[in-house]
């Protein structure tokens, strides 16, 4: 098990690499969902404004 975490001595390079890439994946998920939610909110507000104008 410790050999796994040690990565043959390369732990300081391997694990940060995996961390950065998995962070990129996670960030993309969060970012995309937030962007969609924001667009929906803006569309809702736009429609509401248009409704009030009438």
């Amino acid at each position, binding site marked *: 098990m410790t050999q796994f975490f040690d990565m*043959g001595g390369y732990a300081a390079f*391997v694990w940060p*690499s995996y961390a*950065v*890439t998995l962070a990129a994946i996670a960030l993309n*998920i969060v970012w995309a969902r937030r962007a*969609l939610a924001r667009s929906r909110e803006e569309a809702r507000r736009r429609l509401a404004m248009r409704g009030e104008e009438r």
Partner: protein
Amino acid sequence: MTWTWFHRLASPPYVYTLAARLTPWFAWPAALLIIGGLWGGLVMAPPDYQQGDGFRIIYVHAPSAWMSLMVYTTMASAAAVGLIWRIKVAHAVAASCAPIGASFTFAALVTGALWGQPMWGTYWQWDPRLTSELILLFLYLGYMGLRAGLEDTQRADRASAVLAVVGVVNVPIIHYSVTWWNSLHQAPSVMRLAKPTMALSMLVPLLMMLLGFTLFFAAILLVRLRGEVLSRERAASWIREIVNA
């Protein structure tokens, strides 16, 4: 054969609902492939006789680099389609690609640097592949910056499309830089027309990761696409139903 299904792809409401329905079909296989690839790469694959366990960085570095190129090509193709045939949905696709590509280009550069230090003795080298990959990151950032700087969506779409198409010349340069020049970076061992030169137990997790990342890109693209399509439709009636759902 009718081409209606193809023409419908230019219709924003159709694309919106299609994207919503397709997303899980890409997201779940992507998750499975990535988890499987991580397991295969970290646990199952044997250590390399030259690089030991350090070579395992390839399972995140190569897919990230692949993403950086593939996403840019998709972005440039969609931009070209939008420019030539003036299809709004195509511009929406291009806009959705940029942040995804930029983040994975950054990941590719960082993981490459972390791999370079133990293997070549340096985090960075101004050799053709690394330099052109850095240029790619700046192209993505320039694309997003140009979009942000232009208020009018239509002008932003078309101007950034020109930029994307002009910059696509960088993609073959990145890919072929290791064969055209004496580069520190190794020559392609997977992405070539001849048989790959890697052992199967190491190759399979890599292919799983490559495919998993690609499907992941598709899933994220579809999510972002919905938002982009929405923001381009001003007061169309179909939005009413979507938003109030």
